[in-house]
């Protein structure tokens, strides 16, 4: 009698290094997916220094922290954002949640499970670095998208992220988006280098090889910082800009890419 419940694709978007435009990219990707009629929720999983609400110009009165501590219901913390996407914001400067807590560990998997039944896409915008919280939230997602720029520090941190998740979480598949690339050859260079170092250093004989699939790149585009200042997705303010067109294409390739339901560890 009942309609078969949907099961969201859950994706953790992570970068290792901060300042690579991860949150902004996540927000715009979510916007593009929501625009096609998909039900999209971004969960701000940068629990210590959350700023997704700033980027998307939403003002939640309660956040993920109150949900996790049991002070409010899940629905109260979800607010509509631009383009029909939904946002589950976190509080910025919440030192308690910058590290792993028992509440977080126990409640987050339940929340994710509940939300998986309600959305087509759950995007976790993780914090920078490789803290317990970042690794934990990534372990709850089916797919991990690495955001890197052509800067050597970003490439190194992207590789470190893949290495840690591959060795400690047995994750075998990753996707890559190269952000702020001057042109396509430089984006492909990032992808090729990462792929070859992974093949050379992270394969351990009999086990399945680690795959890094290149999803595409977003060019370095002044429209992006302009949109951030206006606290509106670039997809809205400058839909014809190179960055917006690239993000549109990325959303399309995400839609066609096969979902890989492989969580690292289940609750």
């Amino acid at each position: 009698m009942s309609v078969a419940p949907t099961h969201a694709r859950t994706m953790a978007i992570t970068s290792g290094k901060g300042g690579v435009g991860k949150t902004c990219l996540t927000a715009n990707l979510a916007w593009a997916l929501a625009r096609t009629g998909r039900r999209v929720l971004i969960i701000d999983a940068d629990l210590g220094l959350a700023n997704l609400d700033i980027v998307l110009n939403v003002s939640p009165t309660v956040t993920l922290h109150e949900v996790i501590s049991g002070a409010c219901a899940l629905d109260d913390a979800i607010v509509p954002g631009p383009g029909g996407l939904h946002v589950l914001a976190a509080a910025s400067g919440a030192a308690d949640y910058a590290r792993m807590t028992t509440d977080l560990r126990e409640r987050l998997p339940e929340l994710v499970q509940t939300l998986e039944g309600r959305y087509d896409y759950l995007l976790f915008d993780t914090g920078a670095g490789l803290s317990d919280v970042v690794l934990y939230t990534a372990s709850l997602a089916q797919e991990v998208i690495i955001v890197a720029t052509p800067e050597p520090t970003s490439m190194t941190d992207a590789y470190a992220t893949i290495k840690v998740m591959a060795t400690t979480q047995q994750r075998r598949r990753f996707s890559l988006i190269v952000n702020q690339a001057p042109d396509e050859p430089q984006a492909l260079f990032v992808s090729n280098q990462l792929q070859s170092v992974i093949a050379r250093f992270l394969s351990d004989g009999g086990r399945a090889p680690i795959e890094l699939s290149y999803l595409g790149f977003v060019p370095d585009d002044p429209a992006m910082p302009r949109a951030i200042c206006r606290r509106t997705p670039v997809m809205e303010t400058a839909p014809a800009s190179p960055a917006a067109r690239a993000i549109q294409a990325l959303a399309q390739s995400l839609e066609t890419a096969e979902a890989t339901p492989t969580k690292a560890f289940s609750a």
Partner: protein
Amino acid sequence: MSATPTQSDEAHLTGVLGVDLTEALRLARQAGYPDPVAQGLKGQALVERVLSILCELSSQDGLTGVANARHFRATLDRELDRAGRTQEPLALILTDIDHFKTINDTYGHPAGDQVLRVIARRLKDNLRPMDTIARYGGEEFAMILPNSAVISLPRVAERLRQCIANEPMTLPDRTTIQVTASLGLASSLPWAVLSASALVERADRHLYLAKSQGRNRVSCEPQTVPAVSTAERTALFQRSPTS
């Protein structure tokens, strides 16, 4: 007569609990418990004592006296839950006796049984009272170590390996043999909610590695977050001739 259970005691028990008291007492004596009847217990006290012995027996491995697989499962679930709440690390070590089939085939099953008993005792002697040791499979033992410092675990596992390998054991026919075992170690992770089966799977993978790398050794998961090596860093920025 007064020292034996009355007919009404037994009848009452059978009716209420479905326990055959005579059979239960036989099991208790066989397992080496002091005879509750000889101790002068009767009525309610006798019933309670017999039930407590039966409970203990149902969680034990009959041959070695350590916990059985069922008790191990229940303990691991409980300890994982506790570790998750208290943020204490929890380790699981799986041990498999090397070439156990050969021991059985060469010296006979009583010898194999003796080896299992000796190893169970040695492992138990080298663990803390709060740890749980269980016979997990035919020649496999599992040890749950709650609240153990992650950094010291490889040393603990190594000590357990040595307590088996470093001292020969004497079989019932007085033959002395050298037995070794392989150990796989996995510990709970601060960033993950672990299921018991996920932890067992990881320890089992390392047990397999210890076996395939030549036996009589310990295999552990890397204890620290792996850093990017200089070689990896160099390769990352090196332009190959084709790119």
